[in-house]
Structure formats: C-alpha cells, structure tokens
C-alpha cells in the first residue's frame, strides 16, 4: 500500500518517534471509547425504551453500519489526514462525551426519542468509522504493511475487550452512565490534545487546540455537574427502565417496568408496584365493603389507575361506581392502554363505572349523591394543594355524601414512619363528626402502610370478605387493626385548611426518615 501513492501531507513521515507511540496508544483509546459509546447508547435505549434485545440489536446494528459509512467516507479525505483525525477526535469527544447526559435530558422533552437516539448513534458511528482508516493511513510509513494491520487491529480488539469488561463491571455501577460518557469523552479529547501538542511546532494548530480545550472544559463541567444533570433528567432517577413518561397539566406520570414488575410514579412518588399492589388495594377496599350491608353506590376519590375500582367491581352487590380523578390523561391511559387496562381488569371501562375528571376538592362541595362506601385514595400530602384533600372541611363534605350506614376509608401514609401524620387523619375525620378507626398492612414496596376507616357509627369488627382474596382473610383482617406501641395512637392536631398541620408534619416525619 505504501507504494501506491506519495503521502499527501508529508509532515508525519518526519515526525518524532513519540508520535508513533501516541498514535498506537490512541488506537487503543479510540477503540475503547468507540465501544463504550455503543454500549452506552444500547443500555440507555433499553433503559428508557424497554425491550433490551431489540434496543441492543438495533443500536449495535446501526452503529456498525454507520462505522462502515465512516470507513467508506474516509476515501474522500485526500490530504492532511492527521488534521482530520484530530478534528474527528474532538467531535467524537463532544458527541460521545455528552451522549448519555444528552439522551437523558432529551428523553422527556422530545416528541420522538428514537430520532434523537439513532441520529446520535449514526453520527458517532460515522466518526468512529473514520478513525481506523485514517490512523492506518497516517501510520503507513512507520510500519511494514503486515505489522501495521496487525498492530492496529490488535490494539483495536484489545480496546474492545477493555471496554466490554469495564462497562458492566466498573463503569455503570461505579460511575453511572452520565459520568461514563464524560470520562470517555475526556479520553478522546485527550488524544486530540496530545497529538496537537506534538504537532505544535510543525503545523498551525491554534484553532483546533482552542476547540479541543472548549470541549475539554465542557466535559469537565459536565462531569462535575453530573449529579445536577441526573436530577434534571429525572428518567435516570428511577431504579427501573422507564416505559412511559408524560407531563400532564397536573402531574408527571412515569411508568417503569423491570421484568414482570410494573410501577407507576406520580411526580416521582411510587403509587403502586404490580408485585404487591393487591395487598394495598385489598386492604383499601375490602374492610370497607365487608362492613357495608348493601354497597350499591360506591365513590372513589383519586385512584385514577383503576386498581381500587377493580376490587370494588368484583363485588356483585355494587351497582354503580363513581370515580373522581383530577387528571383525564391518567384515567384515559389506564382505560385505553391494553397492558394497563389488564392490570385493573378493565375497571375504568366497565358499564358500572362513571369516571369524573375534576378536582375532588371542588367536586365534593357541589356533589349531591349518597354513597354506601367511599374510598379515598389520594397521593400523600406532600404539598399544600394535596393537603387540602385531608382537611376537616373536606371530610365534612365527604361525611355529607356518606349514607347513614356507609363506611369510608382514607389511605393515610405510613403509621410507622409518620405516626403523627397518620393519626392526624383520624383526628381530622373525628373533628368532622365521624367515628374513625385505624388499620394498617404491610406492602413491601411501601413498607408498613396505614388506612383510616370512618363512619357515622363506630365501625365494628364484623366483616364479610369474599372468597379468593390473596391477602385478606378474617384473621389477617382482624390483625390489621392491632397497633404495636411504635405505631400506637397519639394526640395530634386537626388538619384544617388554614393550618395544614398534616403537610407540615408529613414533611417533617418523612424528612427525618429519608435523612
């Protein structure tokens, strides 16, 4: 090959021996970096889009093809191979270094994430594909062709081995994906800067050096700010692959899945995990329905996932369910998306179901019905706006809607983590003129979880449970009403619109627990 044509640049053949060493090391580096970017893209894609076989397969295929395109395009580099190589390195450093952070940040804001993902994979692939042909051409006067091919490919494959071992064993667990990207971007730009320093005496490198330093600075800044980026890119915040994420005017809905475990998060707070939600929903629903002689009319406040409704509709005595949830996107999602509707047994589409999309705080004030059972399943009182749904004023309206022999229940946070908050719900229901009784259940993904039952008359012990429940039996139901000392009732203030005592104690108790 060396015989075919004279070198176009001509500078490299007189370059010092150190350049050859740097160039061979850079083969190792660029090979490692190239594979790391490929692995990052594949992992990110399966993490964000689910279905890892498909994602890895398509990402790797696209990447390899793009490398082929890059190799092909290398023939159009007719002169100054070294200069082009340095620029390619700088570009790869910028794109590859920011790839993970960029994809995380882009995921929630772009319409079609795949376009961003594959666009980036193709761009990096093309650039990486340019690297080896250019290096071979640069080094062609330094080694016999036989040695050259051997050297380059050996380093290339060693780099691949290093990357593929480091990536799952060290990089992802230790650094995380965002930092890994930045670290390897730094390696790429390091190669570029080393070459520029060596070439400094013989070529004008000012512009390239400036560009390299800018990229270096941006990568260092990204590395330092990786935690912030992680926080902004909330997707990376979930422990499991995200399969759905959407911002509605009211909240951020995120659904994740790992294996069989599907989870719903609202504003980052776990709402259910399919592994154990039956425990939660059986405990929410059946102690109430089992204490009502004839639950014809049932009201569910919150619970837009339809899981509580699923339990309610199992009861043939129930004639009609009204479910009030703020967010139409939530109830539409759990009614129309087959995989989610399967979870709630199609409860939201049932002919016995009436879904009202509205603010429950306003709805209860103008509602006129009478309900035999009311299930209140709102998110935890993390904000003042949500705290309004746990106030004496709100419960007074709810009490008005509760039939004389009706029973209601309220999901009321953890009596173990936040006992004062938990018992505030009971105190508040009592201030609204109801008789309240607490009970709790163990739900592994939440921990020890509390509910508060209330009625116009003190709720009794007698309960009728249907056959076929997975969690509740007569004995386990009875046990739920027993509170050991660490969760025992204690005096609390009444939560009112004008003191929001619950929001404050909730923040304090959970803040202490979370550290």
């Amino acid at each position, binding site marked *: 090959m060396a015989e075919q044509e004279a070198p176009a640049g001509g500078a490299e053949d007189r370059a010092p021996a150190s350049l050859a060493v740097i160039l061979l090391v850079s083969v190792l580096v660029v090979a490692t970096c190239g594979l790391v970017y490929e692995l990052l893209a594949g992992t990110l894609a399966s993490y964000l889009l689910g279905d890892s076989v498909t994602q890895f397969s398509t990402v790797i295929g696209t990447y390899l093809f793009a490398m082929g395109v890059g190799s092909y395009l290398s023939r159009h580099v007719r002169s100054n191979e070294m200069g082009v190589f340095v620029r390619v390195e700088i570009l790869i450093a910028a794109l590859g270094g920011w790839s993970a952070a960029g994809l995380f940040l882009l995921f*929630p*804001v772009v*319409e079609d994430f795949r376009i961003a993902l594959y666009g980036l994979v193709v761009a990096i692939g093309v650039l990486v594909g340019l690297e080896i042909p250019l290096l071979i051409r640069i080094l062609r006067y330094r080694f016999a062709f036989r040695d050259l091919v051997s050297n380059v490919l050996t380093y290339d494959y060693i780099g691949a081995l290093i990357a593929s071992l480091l990536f799952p064993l060290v990089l992802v667990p230790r650094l995380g994906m965002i930092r890994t990207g930045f670290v390897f971007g730094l390696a790429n730009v390091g190669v570029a800067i080393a070459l520029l320093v060596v070439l400094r005496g013989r070529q004008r490198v000012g512009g390239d050096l400036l560009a390299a330093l800018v990229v270096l600075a941006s990568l260092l800044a990204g590395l330092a700010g990786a935690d*912030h980026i992680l*926080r*902004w890119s*909330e997707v990376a915040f979930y422990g499991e692959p995200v399969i759905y994420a*959407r*911002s*509605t*005017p*009211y*909240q*951020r809905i995120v659904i994740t899945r790992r294996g069989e475990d599907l989870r719903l998060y609202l504003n980052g707070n776990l709402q259910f995990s399919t592994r154990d939600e039956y425990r939660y929903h059986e405990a929410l629903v059946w102690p109430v329905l089992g204490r009502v002689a004839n639950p014809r009319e049932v009201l569910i406040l919150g619970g837009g996932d339809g899981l509580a409704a699923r339990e309610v509709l199992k009861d043939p005595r129930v004639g009609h369910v009204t479910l009030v949830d*703020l967010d139409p996107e939530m109830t539409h999602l759990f009614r129309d998306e087959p995989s989610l509707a399967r979870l709630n047994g199609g409860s939201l589409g049932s002919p016995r179901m009436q879904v009202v999309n509205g*603010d*429950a*705080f*306003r709805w209860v*004030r103008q509602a006129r019905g009478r309900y035999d059972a009311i299930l209140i399943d709102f998110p935890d009182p993390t*904000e*003042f*706006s*949500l*705290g*309004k*749904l746990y*106030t*004496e*004023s709100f419960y007074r309206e709810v009490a008005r809607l509760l039939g004389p022999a009706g029973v209601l229940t309220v999901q009321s946070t953890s009596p173990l983590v936040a006992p004062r908050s938990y018992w505030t719900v009971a105190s508040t229901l009592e201030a609204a003129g109801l008789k309240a009784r607490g009970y709790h259940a163990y739900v592994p993904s939440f921990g020890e979880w509390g509910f508060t039952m209330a009625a116009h008359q003190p709720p009794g012990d007698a309960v009728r449970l249907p056959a076929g429940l997975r969690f509740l039996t007569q004995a386990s139901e009875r046990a739920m009403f027993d509170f050991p000392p660490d969760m025992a009732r204690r005096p609390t203030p009444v939560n*009112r*619109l*004008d*003191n*929001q005592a619950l*929001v404050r104690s909730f923040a304090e108790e959970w803040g202490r627990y979370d550290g």
Partner: protein
Amino acid sequence: MAEPTRRQVLKGAAAGAGALALPGCTPTTFPGTLGGADWQRGHRVRDGGFPAPQGQAEDAAIVIAGGGAAGLAAAWRLKDAGYSDFVLLELEDTVGGNARSGRNAVSAYPLGAHYLPVPNREAHALRHMLQGFGMIVGEADGAPVYDPYQLCADLEERLLWRGSWQEGLYPASGLTADDIAQRDRFYREMADFRQGVGSDGKPAFAIPRAYSSNDPRFTSLDGMTFAHWLDGRGFTSPVLRAYLRYCCRDDYGTEPERISAWAGVHYFAGRRGWAAGGDGDRELTWPEGNGRLASLMGKAVAPHIRSGQSVFSVVREGDSGALVTAFDHAAGVSRQWRARTVIMAMPHFVAARVAPAETVKGALRYAPWVVANVTVNRQPRGRGSALAWDNVSTGSDSLGYVVATHQSGSAGDGPTVLTWYMALSREEPAQSRKLLATRPLAEWQRIVADDLLAMNPDLAGAIERIDVWRWGHAMVSPAPGFLSDPARLAAIAAKPPLLFAHSDLSGLSLFEEAHYRGVVAAEAALAHLGHPFESLGA
C-alpha cells in the same frame, strides 16, 4: 396544549437558567387589555360640559351617589332595615369601586382590593353582614365561627429573600443580632399599642377608626411621619425598615416618609380580629378578592342600582332635601332626582366638584396603583417554600402577587391567574398619574412580566396574557395631620339632608372603614326620615 406540556417538563432549574440567559426569549407583548376607572367619565365631572337636565325630577327619599364599597354598604344597610325608597347612582357600568373584579376562562380575579381581615369586635355592622352572606357560619365559645372555605387557606404568605422563598413576610435568615433585637422590640411596642386604652376608655387603635381613642397620648403620633417616628425610636434596622416600607405601600400606597405615624402604628396595632378557634388573625379571601363582597352587596340591592350615571351636581334645597343631577351615559341625557336625603358615597376630591358648597378644602392625597392580572398556564414554584396565596419579593419594587385559585381548588399545578400589585409611590402622585394615563399597555406588560420572571424564572414561557388595570386615585393616603384634616372632619360632621360616606372620612382606605361609613350614613338617613330601625351599633 402539547407545546406547554412539553415545555413544562423542563424542570424549574433548566427553565430558569434559560430565562436568565435569554431574556430576549420572553415575548415583549402579550395578549391583554388596558383598563381602569373610567377616566373620561371621571374627568368630565371635573371639566363639566354636561347637557342641561331633561324632564321632571324623579323623587326618591334617598339617593346614594356612588356605588363603591361605602355606597353599597349604605344601600345594604337600608335594605337590611327594610327600607326601599332609594336609588344608587354609579358612574361606572358596574358597581364595586376598588372591590371590582374580573373573570376569564381560568378564574375570577380581583382588580383591586382582595381580602378582608377577620373584623374586630367593634365592627358590629360588618359582622352582621358577613353572617347574612354565609361567611360567619356559627358561634363557638361566644365568638363567631368563620367559614373555613373563605378563610385564607394555608400557606398564606411567602417571601423571596436571598434567593429562596420562605414562609411569612418577615425575613427569617441572615439577620444580625441588632436586626433581631429591633424586630422584637418593634413587635413588643406594637403589642403594647394594640392593648393600649386611652383616657377616654377607648382602645388606642380601632377598626373602624372612629372607635379609636382621642387621647393625645396616641393622636399626637399624627403630628409626624411614620419614618420620623421610627427614627426617633431607634428603629433603624434596614431589614425592619424594608418590611415596614412594604407594609405602608401595601395598605396605604405610600412611603413611610409620607404617612402619619398614627396610621403607621394603626397598621400593626389596629387589628384585634375576633373569631372562635384562634382564627382572629386570619383573612377572608376569594378568587375575585373583595369583588365577592361587592357582588353580594350589589345583588342584595340590585333593583335600586342605576349604573352609568355620572352624578355631576348635588345642590342642597334648604333642610328639606337636595337636587341631584346626573348624566346618563347610555341615553346621553342628564336627569334629576329630588331627594330628601343624599348620601355622597364618593371620594372627597370628586365630592368637592359635585357639591362644592358642601365640602371644605383639605389636604387629602391619593395614591395611584397598577394592578395586573397575569394568566399563566402553570402555577409558580421556586426554591424553598411552596407557593402561597400572597407572594412577595424583597428584591422587587412591586408588592408581589396573589394567586386567584388559592382558595378554590386542590390541583397542585395547572393554570391560574396571578394578581400583581404595584403602588406607584416613588414619584409624586400627580407625576405617577400622568404615567398611568400615557404609558402604553405593552410597556406595562413588559414591566409586569420582567418583575414576575425575576421572582419566578420558572414561569418562563408560562404567561398567556397580562391584563393591566390602572387606578389613578386608588386610595387615600393618611398623611401627617390627617386626623384633624378639615375636609375629613367636615364630611363626618355633615347632617341630613346631605351626608357623606366614604373611607376618605376615616382617612384609611380599608373595606371596614368604607362599610362603617356607609352604615353610619344610612342610619343617619333613616333616622332623618323617621324610619324605625335597630342601630347596628355604628
């Protein structure tokens, strides 16, 4: 909807950084309207040129000239006493005055006054009205129980201080030992004033003001400015003074250097709200602000209201009554009413033009305000404390914003209307009024948007429209000497057939004062006409 939703997920910090880095990205004009008290009608009363009255004068036992809070309160009082031979003439097309409100698809919102503190024990008539309006719902331990839905919900106030929002309006961090000592001493002295009783056995500071003691120990405060009094008492802490300046501008529209020390102390020492369950220090508020009170009063007397009527002349006819001439804007003609009693429920500067023979010249001054209602497609957030009803920034010359949907819903996000307030107290009122008359809508909108985005960079891209409302004479400013202002005293002393009812008579632009003056005038008119009634203790 897709666009804002997408943008919404850019978390606050990212959006904030964008807003700071790219101020040019905030559109310079927004949809919106430029409104305000009808100046053309108002100035025509000043400049004259109305046609001569047509037809026979109509007879009415009582004519109430003016449908702001005082005029409406007078009408409400007459109705409440079972009296119905009266008309209320209002210059604008809708009654309510400062308590008017607006409404769009997102929410109702105030155009001016937006809350009523739980009234003091001495405000009998007001409490009677609140009971009738369902705002007082019962009694517990001998004290009135207020409807919790109408009391301002927690969180009531937050302050942007040193880059982060905190609860309450007084800075809680970064204070020097001296700041803290002065603050505590100030509160102690105000608590003493609040409990103070004069040699006449009356509370030192009361609401309505008329119940306050005339003991010179307290009234002598009217001889100096609030700033002067603070200086003399050694209240020099910049944090304290900034807070007090905010309070003066918020309640009086004026700087501490321009208000009477009596009024300054009254702000802190006058309120002893009386309610069961520890609600005495709370406020009643509604999405439309005091528009709720105005519309309930207006509804109660609706058949008596004639709007779009510029009363431009009131002439006494001996002791038997007065002749009221008004221009009907819809019909384009002037008409007359012959009344046995006239209640002049208008600010003093207007009354002086309508009935020059009946008023005395005084030194009352009025503060100009701008109120902007900003419709946003998502609720403001910010570092630190969560969104409150009233949100104030120490770094802004505005008085901050209140959230119209604070009371009405529990949706933590979603669209709302922010009512933004600015007292134009830096310049002389006349200069500021000129600004009000000439500055175009787009410029006001830019000022409002810049101020709001400085407080809440998270609102970048969330502003949908800005409706600006101008108040040339928003409120009377209680300058030193206001307690003995001859204009005020003459109006208070007026006897039938010509009475005055306006918060100007108190010198403090508070709903309680306007209501009290309306009730007093109405009862004086009823007594004059021989209609039996049980006084509401006014």
